[in-house]
């Protein structure tokens, strides 16, 4: 059956935990960048 438009049927469930992990890694990277060159 074709996915219904405008419903929650299409697309996979977002991975919020992965977003948080990447966010923490990016901030950590920026902090290390600052420390390395200050």
């Amino acid at each position, binding site marked *: 059956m074709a*996915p219904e*438009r*405008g*419903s*929650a*049927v*299409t*697309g*996979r*469930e*977002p991975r*919020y935990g992965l*977003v*948080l992990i*990447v*966010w923490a890694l*990016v*901030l950590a990277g*920026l*902090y290390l*960048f*600052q420390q*390395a*060159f*200050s």
Partner: protein
Amino acid sequence: MHPIDWTIVGLYLVWIVWDGLRLTRRSHGIEGYFLASRSLPWWAVGLSVMATQLSAITMIGTTGQGYADGMRFIQYYYALPLAMIVLSVTLVPFFHNARVYTAYEYLEQRFDVKTRAFTSFLFLLSRGMSVGVVISAPAIVLSVVLGVGVTTTVLLIAVPTAVYTMFGGVQAVTWTDVKQMYLIVGGLVAAVVVLFLRLPSDVGLVDAMQIAGAAGRLQTFDFRFDLTNQYTFWSGTIAAFFLFCSYFGTDQSQVQRYLTARSVNEARQSLLMSAYWKIPLQALVLLVGVGLFVFHLFTPPPLLFNPVHDRVLRQGPAAPEFLAIEREYGEAVQGRKEAASDLARAEDDASRAAAAASFRARESEAREVRDRAVTFVKDTTGDLAYNDVNFVFPTFILTWMPTGLVGLLIAAIFAAAMSSISAELASLSTATMIDFYRRFYRPDGADAHLLAVSRVATGLWGLFAAGVAAWAAELGSLIEVVNRFGSFFYGSILGVFILAVGFPRANGHGAFLGLIAGMASVALVAAFTPIAFLWHNVVGAVVVVVVGLLVSRVGSLMIGD
């Protein structure tokens, strides 16, 4: 500019208008025109979300900020991923399930018509004004390049954008955004590469970073808690969290982007693309600014980046004094260059520390002369808002980029402007049509009639924005102007949506009076305290929620609930 570069810019303009116009046939009815019939894939919507946020002000103002102030501004974006997660869990499913065209339409379903109309009106007011500022930033660049009036350049940017948005609708907005985003990122990467290739041969990438770091240009974290400073870790994580929840959750120019997604989960995915990529992208933009700073350590910068003011002073009665400051600046810059070279050549920690201290001293000398020059410009010309940071990157592009890339970068600035303006014009038209015209004037209007009037509304908003842009052209560091204007309403509007989604007992009167109280509080805070504008979002949102709940509660008690 070389004819090849003009050709590239011209080709870009023709191509993007053609690309937008050919999507006109996909705009069936107003749902097709305003929401692409809720059919777009998450990745296109996600790129459109990013392209809408990244305007020419980012290309010009933020690179200038990176040049003058370093990476500190990156902290402003730290809370963005968190805001995207919160919105994905809360407002996004509400909007999709309500099948609305505008964020404000949902407020009528939840509260009442006056709350919907008032928030939509506030959106039209603030976004209508700010879209003018978004046009004027690249207009300034073009007026410098062409040597023509700002009004002409405003029209050159606004008219093509209004044309493809007017006819192609949101399909044109989204699919041109996708291509414009590729062009912008390509242009920025090219600029970074050229900047570092233009450094002296004995100054490597690590040396350049060490010099920038010694000048304090690589500060990415400032943990001081200072309510008067918006570029700290705390402003960026707490206050900016409210700003981003409001911008992405309640500003129609962004809400409309993900309402076009074909499902709730695809709308969420589109927002999360920014959660992953916005901070790295902003770091790239700021790195261009830092690169410009390092480049100008070894290649003397002009005393004034704004060629108009430079010419006025050089040819006016104050020329002798101006030339004296320029000579002094030249000497300070030469001293700074030698100190920077010493720092790049330093081999051990002790000599590096000594060279860094010497470089910092020379850098503050150069900065002191330059500050004096800016004060001199203000006193002599009477232009008290003089600030030429927006000219730093365009000046580099036109003077130091190779032929071909100049055209690409100028086209990228056009693209950044147009991708934001098109989404904003579409959203202004949508709010006008859905929240006012169809709601109050023609609730039973035929689809063909509404579509025709929608196109006219988009065109009229384009004209209005061009008009605002024409006199908003000289406003100092434009990014803050836009954000400051938005912050006056943003927090309060967010407060209304928090009441709508988070507090089932809140009612229409509470939301409406809370909104007025929130805006009044922001006005008072702005007028009588030195608190940085980013925190106004927090003040507005909190006051709306507290007052809204109190009024709702009192109302319930009075009717014996």
